[in-house]
């Protein structure tokens, strides 16, 4: 099968949907003629023009709020905010408006909006360009939250996001944007709330997200040589979160590690833990472990940056430790 990059895959999904549905439009800084800072909209402006691919001023709150109103009135906005960090200025619009409009209007208004941007630590981007806020969006009722890890998933989930009548946060790890992977030529969609078992194994279950899926697979390959068999699960969407697949796996392995580059306190790892404790307590042969990025703003210098994120070795070690419990 042909291989294309993560960004190209998502862009292809976007192009297909825009072709199909004239009510879809994209806004963001430099997503018009420039094609986006990360090439997310490359080539589309030429095809669909300024109203469907519109550059914005640096007014994140403004254009997110604007897109909320657009979604309320029959169009389907996609906000391309480059780095997820920038969207914090629009948090009021996200949490108090976009997430609540359907409820407040007792279902008479829909909220078909996609908010996409880059997350994650890497490349000395430092603390204003390294945030991953999916736990926050998961805490708030009303959102769908997607954290894809492969080009295939990126395309299939992005198309589902665009077709969704609910607000979707689509968060792309910046270190994955140029990752190549197999993507079929035929159209396809992937459902929300369906985890992907990316590696089968018997002795321990690891739940990992985004870039950490790849690091965990590396660690699992390493551990295989030590005779340790690891099952790796990528939830792909954290809201909704497919706990059934996780619970099934733990039923077999009895052990669970959650690897999450982002912060531990009140994070996805805590939520997965709490749900497993509630629904799969008797399956547990050991305490559930979390491996997170350090609870710190992100430093710039490569030596410091490397120290605050899980890597193949620390993941492998966490798995070894868990097996000793």
């Amino acid at each position, binding site marked *: 099968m042909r291989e294309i990059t993560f960004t190209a895959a998502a862009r292809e999904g976007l192009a297909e949907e825009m072709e199909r549905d004239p009510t879809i439009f994209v806004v963001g800084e430099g997503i018009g003629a420039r094609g986006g800072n990360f090439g997310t909209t490359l080539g589309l402006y030429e095809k669909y023009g300024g*109203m469907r691919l519109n550059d914005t001023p640096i007014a994140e709150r403004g254009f997110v709020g604007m897109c909320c109103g657009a979604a309320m009135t029959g169009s389907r906005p996609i906000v391309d905010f480059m780095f997820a960090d920038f969207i914090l200025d629009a948090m009021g619009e996200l949490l108090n408006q976009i997430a609540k409009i359907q409820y407040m209007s007792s279902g008479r208004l829909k909220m078909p909006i996609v908010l996409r941007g880059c997350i994650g630590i890497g490349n000395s981007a430092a603390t204003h360009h390294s945030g991953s806020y999916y736990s926050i969006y998961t805490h708030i009722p009303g959102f769908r939250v997607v954290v894809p890890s492969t080009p295939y998933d990126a395309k299939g989930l992005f198309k589902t996001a665009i077709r969704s009548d609910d607000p979707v946060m689509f968060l792309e790890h910046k270190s994955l944007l140029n990752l190549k992977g197999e993507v079929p030529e035929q159209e396809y969609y992937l459902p929300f709330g369906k985890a992907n078992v990316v590696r089968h194994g018997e002795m321990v279950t690891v739940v990992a997200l985004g870039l950490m899926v790849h690091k965990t697979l590396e660690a699992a390959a390493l551990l295989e040589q030590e005779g340790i068999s690891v099952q790796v699960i990528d939830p792909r969407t954290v809201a909704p979160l497919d706990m059934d697949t996780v619970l099934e796996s733990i039923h077999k392995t009895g052990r669970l590690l959650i690897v999450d580059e982002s912060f531990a306190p009140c994070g996805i790892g805590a939520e997965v833990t709490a749900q497993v404790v509630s629904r799969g307590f008797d399956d547990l042969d050991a305490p559930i472990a979390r491996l997170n990025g350090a609870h710190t703003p992100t430093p710039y210098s490569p030596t410091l940056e490397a120290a605050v994120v899980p890597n193949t070795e620390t993941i492998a070690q966490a798995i070894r430790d868990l097996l000793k419990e």
Partner: protein
Amino acid sequence: MASDLNINKQTQIALYRTMVLIRQTEEALARSHQQGLIHGACHTYVGQEAVATGVCAHLKHQDVVFSTHRGHGHALAKGVPPREVIAELFGRVDGCSRGRGGSMHLFSPEVGLMGTTGIVGPNILQAAGAGYTFKLLGQSLVSVAFFGDGAVNNGAFHEGLNLAAIYQLPVLFVCENNLYATEVPFSFSSRNPQVGERGAMYGMPGIVVDGNDVLAVYQAAGEAVTRARSDGGPTLIECRTYRIRAHAEGMRDGTYRSTQEVAQWKERDPIKLLGARLTTDGIATQGELDEIGRTIRAETELAIEFAKNSPFPDPRTATDFIYSTQA
């Protein structure tokens, strides 16, 4: 009083009627609040009726309005039946938001009332967004944001007006400058007392009107709506008006303004002003105006009864409608 306008008699009477409808609904709500029938906040529109009335008179059902915490008047002027507004404040299932929202979350998309809001600012942005949809889809529709002087100092005003201006969206930004945000005077929170003239800063027409003169509001809004419908872009309209009652029902109306000031503005009651003009111009007799008042009072009383009799929502529905699509 904008007396050289050419507004036909029926329209003038309709404007009068709408203002009375708002006033009487608000007064009924204020009484209901004292009786404990309203569970949450209630910010009345008494004194500002000319603004919603003069603007909404130009709107079709598919045109949309994005309103504020002080939104009953906008809802009523846009066509939400009084009983649905009242039932909503009573927390009943027949309220326009099915009891989910109360005063600050009135929704009636069927008639283009796209929400009141408990947060100052977002409705300005959302109105721009509706305009975006209309322009994108080539619909000849118009979007209106109502907001107070308090919102003018908020970033949403700045970003929303700029976006509407650069994209040339069909939007009316209607500022109801009633001189205070809760108890903070606009003259304290801004060193620039002008709102209307700020349109120029965003490259859009900016107009100032007497917000207690419904005909002046009607005239200004008409021009802005025409411009918007013909792809002429947004307009900022500052309506200078005054809130007669306390910021919210049940609040003391402290020492931040003088009784004299309130009395002066009561003299300029928009309903009184239009009533006087209608009788002077021979458009209606005092008897006819009184009859309008009586009819509406009867309607309002029925609406209150309707609301009282509407059931409270079933608690099992409390978490319905969070999402449209299956997980």
